[in-house]
């Protein structure tokens, strides 16, 4: 029984590799075998993910659905190919409904005292009006946290996302000290345990582990399924736009717009540009607001 499952999973593994197109020369052959499904006993030589050459009888090769198991810590180190994820937060639309925080806490199994997203009350100076600023990890292109991590537990991916591998993290909290945006939270005690049996993935950030760091991850598990992060879809006011810098498109789930046009027309900026951390999260200034600034949060969350 156990052997069977092993075989099954390794087959899945190499087919996944195949579908990723890393074996261009062999794909043609494999595909014909798939479509023919001969029982002739002919074998095809394929390469596994760890670089071994294996022979598989053609009858064994099957096409499969794209699998959605969460990426392992090793797989999660590679970004999603051809993507550069980017977020735009429209401060004019935020009224502190906190639905993004709720959705994020729920998906990542977070307690209210260690949220990945915070909605901050900001006021630039005495004369200017206060506004709400949803803040998450800025996924910097020049990330101070990654520079100081002594063990490579936090890393930058090709798709722009900065992730934490909480199976490697030693809990020194240097990354938290280095982050100028206080984006990271720490599991000071034992985190809630309902998600204990879920296989850990840095792309889902669950389950959290005691003595390690966590933070907003841009929900790469959703992105792999071509879905939007939970904070984007849960926002009742379309505050958060998410998309790909290479495609130059972002969407808040309702409208899809050109990133460059949006930033140009609404004077998009990045928080504390002068630090040189190059955040991947842009803000649109709180002008022509949809809602008055209201401190009573209960009123705000009624959407």
């Amino acid at each position, binding site marked *: 029984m156990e052997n069977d499952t092993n075989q099954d999973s390794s087959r899945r593994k190499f087919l996944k590799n195949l579908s990723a197109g890393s074996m261009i020369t062999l794909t043609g052959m494999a595909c014909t075998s798939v479509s023919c499904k001969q029982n002739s006993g002919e074998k095809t030589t394929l390469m596994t993910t760890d670089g071994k050459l294996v022979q598989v009888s053609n009858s064994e090769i099957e096409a499969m659905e794209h699998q959605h198991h969460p990426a392992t810590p090793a797989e999660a180190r590679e970004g999603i190919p051809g993507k550069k994820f980017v977020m735009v937060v429209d401060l004019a639309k935020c009224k502190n409904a906190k639905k993004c925080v709720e959705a994020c806490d729920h998906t990542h199994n977070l307690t209210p005292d260690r949220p990945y997203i915070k909605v901050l009350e900001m006021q630039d100076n005495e004369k200017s009006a206060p506004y709400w600023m949803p803040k998450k990890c800025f996924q910097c292109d020049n990330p101070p946290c990654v520079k100081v991590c002594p063990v490579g537990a936090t890393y930058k991916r090709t798709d722009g996302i900065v992730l934490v591998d909480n199976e490697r993290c*030693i809990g020194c909290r240097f990354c938290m*000290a280095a982050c100028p*945006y206080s984006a990271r*939270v*720490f*599991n*000071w*005690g*034992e985190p809630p345990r309902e998600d204990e049996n879920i296989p850990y993935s840095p792309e889902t950030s669950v389950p959290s582990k005691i003595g390690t760091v966590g933070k907003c991850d841009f929900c790469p598990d959703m992105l792999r399924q071509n879905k939007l992060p939970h904070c984007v879809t849960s926002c009742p006011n379309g505050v958060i736009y998410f998309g790909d810098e290479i495609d130059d498109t972002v969407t808040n789930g309702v409208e899809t717009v050109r990133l460059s046009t949006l930033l140009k027309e609404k004077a998009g900026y990045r928080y504390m540009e002068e630090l040189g951390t190059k955040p991947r999260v842009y803000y649109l200034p709180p002008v022509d607001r949809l809602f008055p600034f209201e401190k009573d949060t209960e009123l705000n969350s009624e959407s």
Partner: protein
Amino acid sequence: MKNYDTLINDLAPRKFGRRGTIWVFLLVLVIIAGVIAYIDQIRKGLVVTNLRDYALWGIYISNFVFFVATSFVGSATVAVLRLTKNKWRTPVVRIAEIITLASIIMAGFTIVLDMGRPDRLMNLFIHARLQSPITWDVIIIPTSIVLSFLMLYFPLLPDLKVLKKAFAKSRPGLSKWYGKFGLNWSGSKKQKAIQQKSIKIIAVMAIPVGIMLQTIDAWLFSTTYRVGWDSTNMGAYFISGAFVAGLGALITVVFVIRYVRKLEHYITEYHFDKLGKFLALTCLVYLYFNINEYVIPIFTAPVEEEIHLNALIYGEYAGLFWFSQVVGLLLPLIILLFKAGRKPRAMFIVGLMVVIGSWWKRYVIVTPTLLHPFLPIEGVPESWQHYFPSVHEWLITSATLAMALLIITLFVRYLPVIPIQRTAEEKGYLTKIDKKEES
């Protein structure tokens, strides 16, 4: 010969008296309490501390910085005074070497107490990334431990031989151990030449290694975008602070040992006067860097830095800030400028002020900065806006300090705190004996 015998009698290790036993007993009690607290911390996680997402480092880190600073006394006295040919150093170097070794061992130990996952300590080697200042620490701290050990051990070899001989009849068991650790030291010309050369190399190395250790410690802070840490002044500021903290610790320990072991003939007012002048000089240098660190930024402070400086000068941290500046630096400096202030008793008080001031100074460097981030602290419990160590943190930190004192105490118990051989040579007692042995 009579002089030489008195010398050995005065300087050779002695059993603990009643006071010594009580002292060790108390230290062990504090250590046990700390071990229990640490076991609890391992079981429950760092939640037993008052550290939270904003005050993410606390007294474990500031205590670590304190140990690193006091460990500089070896480089400061042994190496610097040796290279500048200051003869008066002889009766205090061994104590300085002992403090250095005890401090640097405890520094290495303390940093692990702060880790969220001490079980993954090996990741620092398996997955080491060279661009992280913590990796630099992982390299420099063991280097310093080895160097400090050699700095204590090599000059000790002739003394171990002396002790082996001295205890041969009265305590044969102990004598055997001294013989073993003495590595068959015979005092031949060849051995002496190797020993002298080695000590010289160690002394020369102690300066760059000491400076690197202090600087890397400073860089742990200045490589972040934090107000109050992100300063190019930090490396030099930490080195100058380490001179002060290290000498303060040395003076305090020297006074206590001199009093307990009745070494007034060996460590005289002259030595205290010299140490006092040395400490005054280092205080002046430290004052200079403090002005650079806290006064000059007032002129160009951006909003966040102004909030930080205000909290130090008038606000929440004003008490501790001014305590560390006045009691830990300014008052000692003023007292030391007077000849009467450099008498042993006055110096003991000054030493204590400096040590306590230095410990709190590191607290003032670590904590307030973390509570003054760029973005407002919101959406977390009110208590997270402030930090004061929990009972667990105090117990564990006290245990590390007690352990450092215990290491020092045990070295003092089993080693001659003043180099016997060198003192004898300097006083001219040894010429006859040497000749007798060589013939």
